[in-house]
């Protein structure tokens, strides 16, 4: 059976149904879906409805357009997470590795791990505290998303963000300290579900000396 004709018949029927909204999902469920905050069974149930209701489909597309436009991305649902929600699992997994790194002179445990194609490109050198921090890395063929982390030297996660882009502007509300030393890395998730890590790079925020003659 012709797939395109099947799609048209389905879309045509759904669009013309004019059904009641009484069985529609709550808009908050659509937001949870867009933000990746819903559990799997809830995602499935909500999407089952989105796939059968033209009204909810349009609303879902509107909400995800708003989210994608605000973050500058066009594809990933895993956006807008609270800073430490995703970090908890990552911290458990990598806390052990980091403990080994910083308990050994030279800290080369990560260099012994598998290599990745993700190259950390910027920033290079110190970043003045009065300049927005923008992290840049190389794109990887077949990447579905990138998971970016900034950590304090003791392993505490400061930021854990997921993006489909290869640039991340660190939000101001993170509050990186002037004269602060951090580490950052990127994990790429590929289409087949496999993951690869970049090396760890230092991120140093340098204090800005007080100006004696301020501009308005």
């Amino acid at each position, binding site marked *: *059976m*012709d*797939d395109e*004709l*099947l799609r*048209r*018949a*389905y*879309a*045509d*029927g*759904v*669009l*013309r*149904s*004019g*059904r*009641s*909204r009484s069985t*529609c999902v709550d*808009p908050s469920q*659509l*937001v949870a*879906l867009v933000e*990746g905050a819903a559990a*799997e069974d809830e*995602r*499935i149930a909500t*999407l*089952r409805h*989105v*796939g*059968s209701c033209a*009204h909810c*489909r*349009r*609303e879902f*597309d*509107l*909400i995800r*357009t*708003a*989210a*994608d*436009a*605000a*973050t*500058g991305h*066009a*594809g990933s*649902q895993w*956006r*807008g997470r609270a800073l430490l929600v995703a970090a908890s699992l990552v911290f458990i997994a990598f806390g052990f590795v980091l403990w080994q790194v910083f308990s050994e002179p030279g800290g080369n445990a990560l260099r012994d791990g598998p290599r990745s194609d993700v190259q950390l490109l910027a920033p290079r050198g110190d970043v003045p505290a009065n300049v927005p921090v923008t992290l840049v890395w190389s794109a990887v063929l077949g990447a*579905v998303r990138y998971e970016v982390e900034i950590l304090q030297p003791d392993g505490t996660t400061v930021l854990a963000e997921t993006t489909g882009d290869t640039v991340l*502007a660190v*939000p101001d*509300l993170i509050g990186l300290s002037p004269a602060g030393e951090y580490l950052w890395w990127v994990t790429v998730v590929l*289409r*087949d*579900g496999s993951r690869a890590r970049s090396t760890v790079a230092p991120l140093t925020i340098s204090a800005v000396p007080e100006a004696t003659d301020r501009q308005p």
Partner: protein
Amino acid sequence: MHRADATSAALEHVMGRFAGMVRSVGRSRGLGDSDLNELTQEVRLRIWRALADHEKIVAVNTSYVYRAAISAALDMVRRARARPVTSLDTNDVPPLREGPEAEFELEELVRQIDRAVSDLSEPRDVVVRLHLSGYSRAEIADFLGWSEPKVRNLLYRGLSDLRRLLIQEGIHPQSYHG
């Protein structure tokens, strides 16, 4: 620069990229210009009302714009739901067939397709519904948090089962032609 001009310029600086992306991304998803313009305007108003000062507006970050955008979209959805239900504008979708008899046959056909999709095993039914609604495999994988190979397999098997069920009901490709 006059204070009001500075505020306006700061707002347009913040909104410039957002508005452009709303237009390009929204149109690619089939959303109408009226919805997209309303969304952009709502976000612009929210930022201006909440901050109202060019220094604060210039310093606004991505997460603030994100929260404003989600809140604006949510309010638009709730307002639309409070209005009487009407069929969506189908001007852009040419009907497969026209005439009252053809309309009745099409409605019956859609009911049969809907029933057949509902008879598919889970979660193939969800993947098939999203595919028939026009989403790509990559989008479906992203929504569900699954890999594309998994979605591809579910879709392949789901569509195969669907075709078999429809043929059992006597629905053949010719049923769709005028």
